[in-house]
């Protein structure tokens, strides 16, 4: 579930911002002769609805029906008792509650006389919701609208860029202020969670590779596990529904000049990476300090209903248009070095704790 602060911040994402996004999708659906587009959300697949409304469900699931003209209907399985909170954090849509949100959508489709409905990621929509819709709206045609949605979702968005920058700054500050002499994984996760959530983040996941010399895989590690000489931590942070990741590699004995130089180089690469050009070439031709070389890389970006999804990698480099991304690097140095940076947005955070 979502545990952190969930509130509407008009100064960071305004109603005008999300309404403009809705209008762009409505224009696209009219060009495609769709009567409406249906978007699914839960806290795992929150990306599409969050982008269109600013709202993420902390729990349960919901459907957003955006007709080709007019106001969107948000049908949610959460009860009316939390309706005030939902409306306060989802102010641009009509909110309706039901244990069977698909039926509410079906009723509305019938009322609208809608015939052809685009569904983002139709094959991933819960089958029970399709059954609920079809029990009421027996004549509607459901067609996949993922590509159509992608044409709107992939556009750079000023408000979203601001939220991503803020999420990145929260993550960078957490790393920068974490105590430098830590011995257990739990010490790291505790400090980072506290910092990120106190800064107003909506959610935070911590993954650790406690000893890069033996295993470079990032996972959820029990708190009592001891940190090795070189370890890495990945923070995945959501702020205002916008997700970023940031990974840092540390030396448990304190400041390490080589790691610091590589981390600053990653900042430099992230700041100048041109997502509209050949990304693979830019990454592979980059001059790393201390003889480090790129062993692997990937880029994630908001995609469909996913807040972040891998969209390019060393093995599959072609990159389609994305609004912003996070670049994860695995570098070979005297041990593997893991780093993740926000890319495609000017002004990424650069603060790190002194040992990196």
């Amino acid at each position, binding site marked *: 579930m979502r545990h952190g*602060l969930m509130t509407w911040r008009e100064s960071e994402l305004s109603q005008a911002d999300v309404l403009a996004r809705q209008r762009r999708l409505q224009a696209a659906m009219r060009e495609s002769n769709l009567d409406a587009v249906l978007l699914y959300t839960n806290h795992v697949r929150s990306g599409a609805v969050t982008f269109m409304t600013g709202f993420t469900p902390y729990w349960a699931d919901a459907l957003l029906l955006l007709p080709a003209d007019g106001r969107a209907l948000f049908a949610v399985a959460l009860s009316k008792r939390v309706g005030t909170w939902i409306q306060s954090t989802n102010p641009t849509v009509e909110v309706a509650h039901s244990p069977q949100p698909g039926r509410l959508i079906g009723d509305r489709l019938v009322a609208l006389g809608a015939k052809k409905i685009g569904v983002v990621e139709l094959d991933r929509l819960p089958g029970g919701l399709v059954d609920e819709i079809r029990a009421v709206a027996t004549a509607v045609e459901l067609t996949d609208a993922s590509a159509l949605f992608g044409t709107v979702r992939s556009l750079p968005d000023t408000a979203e860029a601001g939220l991503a920058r803020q999420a990145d700054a929260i993550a960078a500050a957490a790393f920068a202020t974490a105590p430098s002499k830590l011995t257990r994984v739990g010490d790291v996760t505790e400090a980072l969670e506290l910092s990120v959530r106190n800064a107003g983040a909506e959610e935070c996941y911590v993954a650790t590779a406690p000893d890069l010399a033996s295993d470079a895989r990032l996972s959820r590690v029990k708190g009592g596990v001891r940190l090795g000489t070189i370890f890495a931590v990945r923070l995945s942070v959501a702020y205002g529904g916008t997700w970023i990741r940031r990974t840092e590699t540390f030396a448990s004995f304190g400041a390490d000049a080589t790691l610091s130089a590589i981390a600053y180089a990653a900042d430099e690469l992230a700041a100048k990476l041109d997502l509209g050009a050949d990304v693979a070439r830019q990454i592979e031709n980059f001059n790393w300090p201390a003889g480090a070389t790129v062993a692997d890389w990937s880029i994630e970006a908001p995609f469909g209903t996913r807040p972040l999804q891998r969209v390019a990698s060393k093995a599959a480099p072609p990159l389609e248009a994305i609004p912003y991304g996070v670049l994860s690097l695995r570098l070979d140095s005297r041990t593997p070095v893991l780093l993740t940076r926000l890319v495609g947005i000017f002004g990424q955070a650069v603060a790190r704790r002194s040992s990196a």
Partner: protein
Amino acid sequence: MAAREVAARRRQRLTEAMRDAGFDVVVLFGNAWQNDYLRYAADFGILEGEGIAIVDRTGETTLYLDDPLEAERAAAECPDLATVVSTDIVADVLQSLQRYANHRIAAGPRRNLPYGLSRHREDMHLGDPTPMLDRLLMVKAKEELDAIRDAAHLADEGYAVFRNAARAGRADYELVAEIEAFFRANGVDDNFMLVGVGGREVRGMTPPTGKRLSPGDLVTTELTPCVDGYYVQICRTLVVGEPSSLQQKAFGVYLEAMKAGISVVAPGVTAADIAKAENDVFHRHGLGEYTTSEYTRVRGHGLGLFPDTKPQILEDVTTRIEEGMSLIVHPNTYHPEVGYIVLGDSMIVGPTGPEILTRTARELFGTAATGGVA
């Protein structure tokens, strides 16, 4: 008991249930919201993306994940699990199922199964494993109950952290930050948690909204730490400062109702019997209106691999309570004079009655004027 042994016991029970139900293969879908069916078979605590497990009658399990980072994590955390990473897990699972063309396949849970699979219900003769899994999830093996017992102390310790964090001037999300930090440092993978701060204007609990605690506020929370997949819940209410006599009087109704509900818990009664015992107390105090869905969702529920599993404790739920279930009884609802109050304890249903797991005092707590526990 090691989590791996608990998972092995679950898989044994699953294959036995499959045999009894006549299924050769089950396909189980899940994500971080609804992970219980998936986790029952494939012992992986998924966080991002979605997963589908294919389990054959020998218990051999393959987990399909659509997120490469999650696949890397699964490889590290569950080294014995066969994992496939793919952007289109629905298509890949359909492809894999072709080799079971002459077998009896079931796919679920029915409501959340992706449409790309559920639309083949007829042509692939897909059975519904939902009732089978629901029963396995409700009535647990001894090893699972031991895992739940082991996790229970963290609910109490978490609430102690919450009480110490609560003081006038702090924001609700800062309390949650302390809880989450404590839990992550102490082996808690996940936590279902809602809060409420205020007085009569508060009708329920939500995620943190940024509200700051003020003297006299009721602060409600339900903490549900998850250890190795198993959730245990505690519900308590505190007052910022000293509780007023009105708040104490109101709290007395909830304490009486919770005790009444717990006193009924035993094998053979129904979920409705427990709910009625709780609600009767409210009726006796002239508060019967506040036991309806207008003011409250459920009067308790099952716990296990999901924080809010069957049976729901409601007067219209006739599910029979059995030994080996784990439940919470919580008469949480709105009180017209003071606002929303919560109180609940987790328990395991034993052969003759409940074994209470959470041990935090059943009090309306107060905080000192400048913070921390009074």
